């Protein structure tokens, strides 16, 4: 049963990623990305990490994907309907590079003895993660809060400056 769910979620994840890259309309690409992120969340559930999975759904599928969709709809023009296809040489080198990365990573995994450990360890509970975040990683949490605030303020400033430029132009 778990194998069937894993296979289905693998198809959703990789297929969503391919749609995100190759869909003609970029809106469909954004939806494909959301599907791929959701598939990763399901894989987190299969890995016995429910807290990370729920966090992934809340932040990625809930916030980032919706933010991307809004941006796509804000900046969509007719020009995008006929997106300039990359030169065939670029396309070929991209496919070759991607395949080389996948194959080399896969060969590394096959050559290693990772398959020896087939059992999940005792999963960390919410309590353990909460303890870690509020003790060992508390400085990281605070720095991350500052980074988030700086990023949001920076994003707001970017759009504001632009509006003034438009008025003066």
């Amino acid at each position, binding site marked *: 049963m*778990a194998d069937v769910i*894993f296979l289905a979620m*693998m198809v959703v994840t*990789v297929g969503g*990623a391919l749609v995100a*890259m190759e869909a003609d309309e*970029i809106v469909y*690409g*954004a939806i494909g*990305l959301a599907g*791929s992120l959701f598939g*990763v969340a399901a*894989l987190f559930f*299969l890995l016995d*990490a429910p807290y*990370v999975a729920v*966090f*992934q759904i809340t*932040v*990625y599928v809930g916030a*980032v994907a919706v*933010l*991307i969709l809004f*941006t796509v709809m*804000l*900046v969509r*023009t007719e*020009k995008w309907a006929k*997106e*300039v296809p*990359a030169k065939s040489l*670029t396309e070929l080198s*991209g496919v070759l*590079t*991607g395949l080389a990365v*996948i194959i080399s*990573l896969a060969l590394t*995994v096959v050559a290693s003895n*990772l*398959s*020896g*450990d087939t*059992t*999940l*360890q*005792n*999963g*960390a509970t919410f309590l*353990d993660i909460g*303890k*870690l*975040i509020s003790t060992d990683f508390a400085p990281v949490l605070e720095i*991350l809060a500052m980074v*988030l605030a700086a*990023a*949001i303020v920076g*994003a707001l400033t*970017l*759009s504001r400056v*632009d509006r003034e430029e438009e008025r003066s132009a």
Partner: protein
Amino acid sequence: MNSLPDFVLVSAMLFGIGVYGLVTKRNALRLLFAVELMINAANLNFVAFSQYAPFATPGAALTNGVGQTFVLFSIALAAAEAAVILAIVVVAYRLHRDVDVSELNSMEG
């Protein structure tokens, strides 16, 4: 039950697709998609390796929690990164009416 290599292979595929997108695409939003895919591949590896870690002594749950905690921070950081990139995309669109990264060369020396 699934084993560690299954998850690592899915992660490798996601990463490879991300690399392909970064090499071929010129639309700024597609590049953002590619980067998000690669970040997700890395996150998947973090959780997979921490859950299967052979060095985690039984009963020491803290060892497993570290990988998940890293991923929580990584997801939050990626969200901030996406917000900044999307703001840049909107600004570029307002100034140039286009988000093709090969056209955005006004800062070229």
